[in-house]
């Protein structure tokens, strides 16, 4: 369960968002510049809310009233960025193990094999990151976030920089991830179609505020009826 109730001023722009995500995948929908990434950065701890409260399960990550702000490296929240952000000086395999090593998680071969199989990245392990295609980079970034055994996975438009063929290539992996990995996810997108296929609940964000929140099908039917059959 993810509780978010935050207020943050960024120059002239204000993000004021409240929701409680309960499903396996909570979708964040909105056009670019709506404040989705700022919100996700707050959940990750990269951005500190001016006021508010963030909790995953029973653990409070931010509570400005009691002065709690857990830094990102102690949150154990996997974050998959739109631009993958693989470490260019490390091989694919070293990238995958980075989070595990930093968290002092013992090497679990079975878990690693599961993740590598799930994302189909076994043949990439020895490559340099500069030799990967856009879709491969995103799959490695997903694997890297999963191998740290996160309690929550943030996916900020992971398909945003890919063309439609590549999107179609990755989407099935994300669906498998949702069904098999057992990690709750927050999935950010401006594509109603992706959200319809992945998310149970959708939060619609408009200019920093929650415009709608609820069950994915009904919310998306209201916002973008052409995408719901």
């Amino acid at each position: 369960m993810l509780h978010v109730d935050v207020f943050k001023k960024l120059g002239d722009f204000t993000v004021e968002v409240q929701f409680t995500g309960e499903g396996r995948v909570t979708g964040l929908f909105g056009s670019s510049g709506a404040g989705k990434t700022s919100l996700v950065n707050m959940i990750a701890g990269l951005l500190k809310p001016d006021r508010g409260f963030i909790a995953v399960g029973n653990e409070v990550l931010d509570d400005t009233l009691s002065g709690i702000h857990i830094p990102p490296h102690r949150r154990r929240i996997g974050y998959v960025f739109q631009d993958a952000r693989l470490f260019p000086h490390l091989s694919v395999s070293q990238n995958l193990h980075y989070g595990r090593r930093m968290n002092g998680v013992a090497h679990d071969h079975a878990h690693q094999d599961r993740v590598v199989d799930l994302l189909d990245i076994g043949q990439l392990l020895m490559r340099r990151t500069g030799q990967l295609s856009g879709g491969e980079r995103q799959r490695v970034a997903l694997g890297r976030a999963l191998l740290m055994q996160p309690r929550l996975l943030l996916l900020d438009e992971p398909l945003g920089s890919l063309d439609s063929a590549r999107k179609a290539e990755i989407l099935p992996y994300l669906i498998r991830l949702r069904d098999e990995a057992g990690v709750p996810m927050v999935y950010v997108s401006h594509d109603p179609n992706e959200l319809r296929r992945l998310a149970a609940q959708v939060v619609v964000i408009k200019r920093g505020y929650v415009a709608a929140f609820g069950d994915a099908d009904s919310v998306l039917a209201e916002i973008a009826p052409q995408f719901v059959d």
Partner: protein
Amino acid sequence: MFDISPAEWTAVLLSLKVGLVATLVATPFGIAIAWLLARYHFWGKSLVDAVIYLPLVLPPVVTGYLLLLTFGRKGLVGGWLADHLGLVFAFRWTGAALACGIMSFPLLVRPIRLSIEAVDRRLEQAASTLGAAPWKVFLTVTLPLALPGVLAGMVLGFAKAIGEFGATITFVSNIPGETQTISAAIYTLTQVPDGDAAALRLVGVSIVISMIALVTSEWFARRATQRMHGT
């Protein structure tokens, strides 16, 4: 012509020792300062910046004289170090290393600072979400990505340290076997009759050392670009 005498070898080896020690000791400080200047805005930053670059623009004799006043036996710092740690700089090769380290510091810091500035902060953010504490982010992401710049800075600093003359001779004089580096030896040789051949030999040696340093530094700079692109 290439028959280098034992006395000349002493000067060459001393220069290498002084340059190496100066560079190795200065590098950790250089990285710390470069990181501070690249990543933080603080009150008095331009002053710190100016002080670091001061040895580059100040007459070397002035730097040497200031070192003598500060780190000499009767100097405030030098006296304390001699009494408490037994560390003497005046008229010792350690003093030459100190002078060379300070004179080459701006050249050491600059490439490191530039390469730290070039490291993508978004990669550091990614590392922190993956569980790396700030110091681990620095050691596993920032520093490795800036490493070619660090090495380039070290090579440049080393080349500068090896060629340092004014501050060194002012601070620790020109004692063969103790503080007489290549530059000081060449200077001495030009002051005596029949010194030309020996001076030219040492000139040759210093040209070779400088060329190697420049080529190596360029090579590291090229590696930096490759590293950033993950190829």
